[in-house]
């Protein structure tokens, strides 16, 4: 496989890792705020803080890994996106900063103040919305290059139905992923009440997820027909994704095997994400950047791939340890040990 394909695949998998882990976190913020407002807060909050506290930094590193990696493999992206995305990226950074630091402040320093809760819930919605616009922008039409100046057309982005459909999709996916995960976790922790609430939420968000996906497909047809037709060529990824989705809904209705249900959600998003990514190629930014010509030198690419392999050898055992100690450890989940 050519280096640029290896590179983009690795990065894409990391972005996927971020999407899943961060969705759980973002959605949890929203549920926890909503739960507080409707008086169901305490137990949901307990489930959430148990899982999330040891993991949030790891989630953040997934994101850092992605953007450091993409600039490493494809330095031209820094130039185009960096110039164009000054404002949207800064806003996303600001929100991430608020979320990360307030999370730590309140968790270690100060038990739940109201404003913290609000910020935690709100940033959980705003961050995915802001980050998802980068994918929208990559479809082309919002950035133009004249001579040496790169301009970002914010107006066009706000006016575009495609852009809004992506934001919608991002938000409902976050809710869906998060709710199915938390259902599983509450179940494992033997918290029946929380489990039942979260299960209903998961079911509630399942339909919008599918609607938003279809909406996005249609909007993409208008925005970038070329990409749309490549997607049609990759359609079996999306069919697979639909099958996994139906399986999750089935399990949620039958109240069975939530663990397998969450794995199905992961596969549902993995297949869709992979299909989207594969059909997005060769473009990194339509129509300016394609992966072949914007890649770094082969020698560097090789070094990065080796670094990646070495890194994985460290990373996989340590993340397994983390998950075994916190996620899959029955006593920890039930709150017997802190």
């Amino acid at each position: 496989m050519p280096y640029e394909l290896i590179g983009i695949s690795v990065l894409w998998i990391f972005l996927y890792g971020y999407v899943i882990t961060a969705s759980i976190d973002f959605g949890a913020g929203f549920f926890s705020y909503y739960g507080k407002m409707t008086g169901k807060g305490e137990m949901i909050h307990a489930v959430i803080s148990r899982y999330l506290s040891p993991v949030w930094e790891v989630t953040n590193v997934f994101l850092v890994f992605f953007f450091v990696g993409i600039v490493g493999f494809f330095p031209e992206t820094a130039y185009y996106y960096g110039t164009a995305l000054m404002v949207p990226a800064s806003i996303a950074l600001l929100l991430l900063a608020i979320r990360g630091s307030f999370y730590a402040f309140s968790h270690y320093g100060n038990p739940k103040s109201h404003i913290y809760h609000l910020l935690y819930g709100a940033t959980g919605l705003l961050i995915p919305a802001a980050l998802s616009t980068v994918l929208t922008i990559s479809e082309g039409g919002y950035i133009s290059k004249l001579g040496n100046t790169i301009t970002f057309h914010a107006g066009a982005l706000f006016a575009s139905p495609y852009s809004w459909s992506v934001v919608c999709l991002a938000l409902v996916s976050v809710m869906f992923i998060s709710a199915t995960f938390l259902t599983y976790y509450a179940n494992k922790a033997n918290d029946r009440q929380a489990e039942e609430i979260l299960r209903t939420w998961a079911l509630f968000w399942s339909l919008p997820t599918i609607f938003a996906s279809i909406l996005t497909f249609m909007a993409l047809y208008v925005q970038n027909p070329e990409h749309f037709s490549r997607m049609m060529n990759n359609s079996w990824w999306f069919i697979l994704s639909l099958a996994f989705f139906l399986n999750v809904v089935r399990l949620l209705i039958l109240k069975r095997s939530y663990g397998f249900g969450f794995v199905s959600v992961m596969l549902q998003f993995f297949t869709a994400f992979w299909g989207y990514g594969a059909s997005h190629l060769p473009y990194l930014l339509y129509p300016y950047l394609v992966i072949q010509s914007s890649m770094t030198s082969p020698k560097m690419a090789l070094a990065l791939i080796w670094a990646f392999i070495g890194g994985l050898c460290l990373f996989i055992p340590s993340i397994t340890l983390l998950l075994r100690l916190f996620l899959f450890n029955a006593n920890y989940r039930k709150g017997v040990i802190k």
Partner: protein
Amino acid sequence: MDTVLISRMMIGITLGFHIIFATLGVGIPFMILLAEWFGMIRKDPQYSLLARRWARGYSITVAVGVVTGTIIGLQLSLFFPGFMRIAGHVISLPLFLETFAFFFEAIFLGIYLYTWDRFKKPVTHLLLLFPVVIGSGLSAFFITTVNAFMNTPQGFTIRNGVILEIDPLKSMFNPATPTETTHVIASAYMTCAAVLAAISAFYILRGKRIDYYRKALRLTAGTTFVLTLATSIIGDLSGKFLANQQPEKLAAAEWLFHSESPADLLIGGVLDPVTQQVKYGIKIPGLLSFLAHDDFHSKVIGLNEFPRDLWPPLFVHYLFDLMVSVGIFSAAVTAFFVCIRYLISRLEWNRWLLRALLINGPLSMLAIEFGWTYAEIGRQPWILRGYMKVAEAATTSPQAGSMLVVFCALYLVLGILSSYILMRMASSNPVENEMEKRGVKWNAI
């Protein structure tokens, strides 16, 4: 203001803020390791509690470090797209490795912070710290190689604006790497020891005369002494590196205009920029020659051998002097403390000594800021010395200015909030209460 200046201010402010938390992030795990290890070998739960309380505060500073680090990672591309487009080809390996080091560190830190009483053998919990210490040390190493590369770029060629023949390892291990990485890591360790010593001194001054703080102060101040020596010795090697590889930076720091042998070390002073005469400064004959080449008579290159438009701003002289002064102050104060503690231990808690140790903490952190600002501004006008000027690298985005304002506001809020939270954590849970609660014995002195 033009966007070049804005971009420089932005990156300078972000890094200046990040480096506070980054320094703590690199050094504090090491100190926690020391304390927990002492607790284990001496079977003294007070040391273990020390480790535990430091770790609690550390969880706050790490969070701000992660947040601000994430910001820089992206801001480099936002504010210096031209730099990343070219240098990205070369520096991506260390940046990539740094991220892995963070991964490693973040995972084990998460485990460490949540598993205090989970293992049967205390050594298991202690072992979890090693990946944290190694991970943060490695990330400091990798990121500093990037900065070293900016000082002495190598391992590539540029033809017609295209970067070719890249050798990633050669560029990582450039001439600036050995001294810069070691000086940065040593100074981070030193600063953390000094900051923790300052905290202990603060409580003793406030009247908490208990054995817990005596142990804490002895441990931290003693460590500060050793680490200050290490930092200063490596700093001397950094001076020799500069004399050989970046002589204009050293000459600017010393206001040396004509090449001289022997050259004098200048402390303080006021420069008349027209006549290049220095007033009021203290000159130490031959010492600059020694700093540069280990020989009191050797020749040191002056600024006049470089074209005027390649001179760094001359105020870096003060930054350099301030950094070195802190090194000397810290070495003197901690050496004094160590002597007194062994020789006349009834004076160990002399108020003036404690006050000196108290200000040594913030001063060390300031020395980090002075050192970095010197290193960065001393590279002006280059961003990649000899290859690319700052002006060619910065963004042209008209919104840069408003983003600068937004981020400054963010740092202000983060700075105030994190200090407030840290102080509240300490005051709402005094160590005496915690020792009672955990059944740890302690004595008043």
